[in-house]
């Protein structure tokens, strides 16, 4: 286990930012931390990075119980902050070298690591370039390079793809997966649900300081819904008494919009064949039929009552 918290509490005055959180992040995972604004994600990250002191609860890092400072463990942690935390008046290589040097890397090894980190994020051609000339995506990639040059075992990424073009986003997502394959454990927070769905092996949903659900993408989807949606497109001239479909076992509700029927059914029921039988019996021409899977976005909405970007 890389990070484990038990009964973690952090208060700012009367406001409870983290409320008795239990969480465990295992070695080799890409752990997605989801939550609307103010859910407590950044506070959680700050506690793990030792930037903020917790009020109570247990924190374990790399198997070690943390009572005071994690100073001796900091070399194993790399943080990619949400803001682009780089110096515009230092070149790309100077930026990476400065931050890596703070973790004790020096001499020839420092030069090697700087080159390696810039290669990794695709900025090897911009070794001596000042970041003020970079695009948003390039700055984000440099932001990552500054966090990984010292080869941390745990990389914490706080919304690393905010405000960049799709090409740079794909590059970053591929880099995250590559970093994970090279042995780093990743904690990844994002406002983009599709990113989390794409790369995270496990996801925790944080809301009002509490972990309200945790698991793989499939597990979360199954937790939050007991229904499925069937969408049937019928011919324009077809007339159907929808009451007949409502009588099918497992169908919970039907809505009709022009020639599209939307049926909410119990997830476990085998109602499709029965629905088809009714349509055939009534001589209804079916143009298309689709099963809508439950997305993580809808799972999140169902759990928190809020959209992720609210």
């Amino acid at each position, binding site marked *: 286990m890389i990070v484990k918290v038990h009964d973690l509490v952090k208060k700012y005055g009367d406001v409870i930012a983290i409320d008795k959180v239990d969480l465990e992040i295992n070695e080799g995972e890409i752990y997605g931390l989801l939550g609307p604004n103010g859910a407590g994600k950044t506070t959680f990250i700050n506690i793990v990075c030792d930037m903020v002191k917790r009020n109570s609860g247990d924190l374990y890092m790399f198997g070690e119980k943390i009572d005071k400072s994690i100073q001796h463990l900091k070399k194993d942690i790399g943080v990619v902050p949400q803001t682009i*935390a780089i110096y515009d008046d230092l070149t790309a290589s100077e930026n990476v070298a400065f*931050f890596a040097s703070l973790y004790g890397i020096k001499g020839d090894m420092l030069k090697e690591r700087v080159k390696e980190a810039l290669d990794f994020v695709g900025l090897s051609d911009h070794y001596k370039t000042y970041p003020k000339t970079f695009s948003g995506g390039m700055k984000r990639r440099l932001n990552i390079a500054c966090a990984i040059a010292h080869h941390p075992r745990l990389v914490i990424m706080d919304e690393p793809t905010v405000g960049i073009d799709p090409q740079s986003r794909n590059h970053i997502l591929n880099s995250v997966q590559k970093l994970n394959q090279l042995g780093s454990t990743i904690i990844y927070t994002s406002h983009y649900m599709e990113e989390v769905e794409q790369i995270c092996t496990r996801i925790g949903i944080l809301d009002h300081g509490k972990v309200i659900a945790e698991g793989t993408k499939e597990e979360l989807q199954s937790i939050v819904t007991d229904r499925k949606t069937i969408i049937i497109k019928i011919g324009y001239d077809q007339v159907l008494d929808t009451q007949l479909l409502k009588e099918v076992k497992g169908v919970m509700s039907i809505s009709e919009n022009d020639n599209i029927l939307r049926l909410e059914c119990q997830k476990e029921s085998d109602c499709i064949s029965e629905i088809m039988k009714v349509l055939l019996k009534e001589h209804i021409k079916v143009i298309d039929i689709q099963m809508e899977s439950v997305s993580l976005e809808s799972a999140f909405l169902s759990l928190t009552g809020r959209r992720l970007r609210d």
Partner: protein
Amino acid sequence: MNILKIAKKEILQNLRNVTVMLIMTVLPLAIIMLIGMALNGVFSSDEFAMDNLELEYYIQGEKSEFSSGIEGMISELLGEGSSYNEVTDLDQSLKSLKNKDITTLIWIDESERLVKLYKNNEFYTQASIIENLLNNYTVKTNVVHEVALTAPELLNNAPQDYVNMKTVNKNKMPSSMDYYGVVMCMLFLFYGITVPFSNTIKEKKCGTMDRILVASVSIKEMLVGKILGNSVVNGIQALIVMSTTLLIYNVNWGSHLVLAVLLVISLMVFVVSFGISLGFLLNSEELGNAAIHTGIVFMAFFGGAYMPLVGLGTLGEIGKYISPLWWSINGIMTTIYGNSNEMLYQAIAINLGVSLLFVLFTSLMISRKGGKYV
């Protein structure tokens, strides 16, 4: 080691900021040249000569070597047409001072070994020179007196001139270029507060400070590293200004150039510590800069950076002691024109002491906020 890494980064960043480098070097040199030339008439040597001064002194108690020493020192200082007379009626002498009939009244208490100086502000500069000399004299003689009382044997082997007072060189009075060359060099160091202040605020806002603290760097290491780095850059700027005034403008920095450099270094550390501490404690760059610039104007005024302070009454007396610039200007001027280093040492101690207080206060405030600097 982290301190040096942070200092190196600060030096690199500041040296690359060409605009600031130019402002902090070219601007003071231009102002010194313009003001020095423009006010040349105001600072004619006649204004500062120690001639035609009427001094009176009153001795309380039995006359001893203490008051004789003062008599000798003052008489050596005074120029043509000046007089130095003992009086027995203190009230009458005070009235004369109020009526501006005399320049200065010196009140000597033999039993307490104290000296009080009553000044006429029309002769402020001359009176200030006398004040500094008296101050040094009493400090030195009191030390010897205490040694004589507690351990007289120590004086047996001491040189006979252990109270060695030097007087002001009557012919060495500052021209406007001399005065503003020294003063503007120091004043512009204070404008250096804004650079480390703004950089610290920016560093907080863009997240690089968090990033440094996430690595194994403590707040104290970061504070000291930033102070060190910024001091080096400000030092280079100050050295450029100082050497240009010395070599090209022929500004008189005195015969103790090393002491003058030490004073400038201490003032630089003071300025940088203040700017960085303020950057850690405040979040609004606009508010901070407004406060800094307003503060500099008041500090410069009461410090005598715009013109030598004359006739400001109680407000001026309080203001000058609060202004860190006054201590430094007074210290360097006394060294150059009063042949005494006491005030300069005092100024260096104040600059470094207050810098240390800034750092400790900032560290304490950050610790009280659980390690967070906002």
